[in-house]
């Protein structure tokens, strides 16, 4: 139960960063922190006490395995997370070249 609560607190830290921070790089970091906490929550849900990693050894059939379904969902999501973070960074570097700052409030003043 403690691990679930702490995992959600990590998510809330990321949310705080997204709402409060004005620096675009900090916002990208906060989004990736939120992603990480979601991955960890999925992995926590599938864990079974005394289980082994879900790799079948035909010689020893009777074992308790950890649930493979949340791991399969997270496996693809991690690589997609890298691609979306790279997309965010591409937008950010383009904005920096145009306005010369990472600050979103200054960008709003410079517009027009």
């Amino acid at each position: 139960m403690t691990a679930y609560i702490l995992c959600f607190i990590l998510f809330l830290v990321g949310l705080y960063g997204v709402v409060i921070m004005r620096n675009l790089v900090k916002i990208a970091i906060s989004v990736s922190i939120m992603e990480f906490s979601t991955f960890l929550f999925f992995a926590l849900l599938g864990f079974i006490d005394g289980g082994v990693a879900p790799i079948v050894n035909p010689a020893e059939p009777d074992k308790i395995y950890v649930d493979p379904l949340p791991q399969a969902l997270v496996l693809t999501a991690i690589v997609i997370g890298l691609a979306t973070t790279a997309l965010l960074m591409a937008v950010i570097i383009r904005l920096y070249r145009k306005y010369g700052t990472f600050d979103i409030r200054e960008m709003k003043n410079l517009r027009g």
Partner: protein
Amino acid sequence: MQGLTIIVKKTAQLIAGMIFMYGIYVITHGHLTPGGGFAGGVIIAGSFILITLAFGSDVLKLIKEERGTTVVESLATIMVVLTGTAGFIFGTGYFFNNYLPKGVVGALISAGTLPLYNIFVGIEVAASIFIIFLSLIIFKEESQL
């Protein structure tokens, strides 16, 4: 982009090949040991990124590399979809049907179409991440001209 010192170059030459081989091992044994197409693809992309960072390159050469990698990525994605469609044609009428013989659990040639998916997805992931890296580098180089 400039390269780094000769120590880094020699070390990268030694290590990058091993990283590449490890990525291929992770992909081809994806149905037996931990790993698979996604993990191995990212590892292979890491070896290419190491070489590019250590040796540096010319902008024109980087653009040529990017164009070639785009073709590879598109072909790999098409092959993933076609392998799924082959289950519809040769199997019993639904997509992603595992129609090849299963073999013995634990042998290298087993598990039907799963190794094919692993290989194609691995190529696709490696090409995608390398394209992202290359386009960032090309952008930085071109804007400094």
